[in-house]
């Protein structure tokens, strides 16, 4: 599999955990460890089924979660008193790390809201360093994308297992297709992008094509409200030479070949 998405776009296991905690509307200091572990592992499965390069840190966190979960299952020490661990919640260390990470995540957001040079304010002969999306829109996090992808995959009829024709779809073909659509329409709804896809394979290839284009900043994925519809739009007007250059970075081989 030649298509690899840098793991850097996934902000890491702690970020994924915070995302799950927020989505479940639970408190960091009282994490329902079984639920969160299950959802965490499901996300890793999804990443791996996309052949995304799941960084080792995600796996380390998975085993930490499983370990905590097993310790939570141990019966409470009822003869009391002499156990050193008594009163220590197995989740404590993880909670401490999550809270600490969250502080810096918020600090980063605060920094981003300042008058950033060459984005909000300029000095003589400055060049812009950041292209803001259209007003009111925000860029979508990779976790939201994955959740949206999962909904699309889950919507497929379950009887697709007898699929016999080996489809030869390449990521490059899908990239070309997406760029064509955007050239004609300007933007496309995330769901509509997959409307014609008939197999899990085709959905995944389409998704990877989309990620490739995000990576080179040819397209932008935006959402105008939390949990609202996700829209894909062209980020830059690209001439055919530029388009060719982008496409050539990706091997033109059928997915999984």
């Amino acid at each position, binding site marked *: 599999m030649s298509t690899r998405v840098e793991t850097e776009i996934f902000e890491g296991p702690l970020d994924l955990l915070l995302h799950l905690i927020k989505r479940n509307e639970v408190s960091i200091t009282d994490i329902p460890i079984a639920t969160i572990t299950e959802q965490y592992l499901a996300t890793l499965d999804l990443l791996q089924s996309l052949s995304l390069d799941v960084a080792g*840190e995600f796996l380390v966190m998975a085993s930490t979660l499983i370990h905590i979960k097993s310790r939570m299952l141990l019966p409470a020490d009822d003869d009391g008193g002499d156990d050193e661990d008594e009163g220590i919640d197995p989740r404590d260390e993880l909670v401490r790390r999550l809270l600490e990470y969250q502080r*810096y995540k918020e600090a980063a957001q605060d920094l*981003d809201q300042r008058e950033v*040079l060459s984005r909000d*304010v300029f000095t003589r002969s400055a060049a812009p360093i950041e292209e803001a999306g259209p007003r009111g829109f925000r860029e979508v996090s990779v976790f939201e994308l994955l959740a949206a992808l999962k909904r699309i995959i889950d919507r497929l009829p379950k009887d697709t297992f007898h699929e016999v024709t080996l489809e030869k779809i390449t990521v490059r073909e899908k990239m070309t297709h997406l760029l064509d659509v955007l050239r004609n329409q300007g933007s496309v709804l995330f769901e509509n992008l997959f409307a014609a896809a008939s197999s899990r394979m085709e959905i995944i290839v389409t998704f990877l094509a989309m990620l490739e284009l995000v990576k080179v900043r040819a397209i932008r994925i935006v959402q105008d409200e939390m949990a609202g519809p996700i829209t894909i739009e062209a980020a830059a007007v690209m001439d055919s030479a530029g388009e060719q250059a982008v496409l050539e970075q990706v091997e033109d081989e059928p997915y999984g070949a």
Partner: protein
Amino acid sequence: MEREEVKSVLESLLFVADGPLTVQRFAEVLEGVDKETIYALLQEMQSELEAPSRGLQLVEVAGGYQLRTAKVNADWVKKFLGGRPARMGRATLETLAIIAYRQPITKAEIESIRGVDVDGVITTLLERNLIRAVARKDVPGRPFLYGTTAEFLQLFNLKDLTELPTLKETDEISLPEISRDVIPLGQPEEIEAL
């Protein structure tokens, strides 16, 4: 020298300067004019530029003064400049925030907070001159300790590091103290030679 004359010179210097100018630097150029006068005139200029009809602002940043465009005009300026977007991603921003608040800090310490490898991000930040190696930590391997630069202050419109907003106390957590057993590295130029 007349007061108005001095003010006019200050404005010219601000216009041609590459980066923020300190009151000290103004005083060196304007021999005989005391720093209090320069400071007062800069304050005056600052409030005059606040008028809605003015497209510039005089900001106090990274220990000096700098003319910048008014924030309300950002879209027009961007349209004029065009240029290629080089967005700062979340990973970069988060790493930068950790370094800003916890400096001097080693790569391993940053990684333990973010829970991921930060090699690539550190390289980007060093290339963009937003951080620099300030010392080496006196522990096995003698890793570099990183700190932020004046460019960092300029990027985020900060006078100095004390202007960083206080970290939010999300809960009763205690941060492990970073030990200060450091070996000074000297000037940044020497570091590049390492």
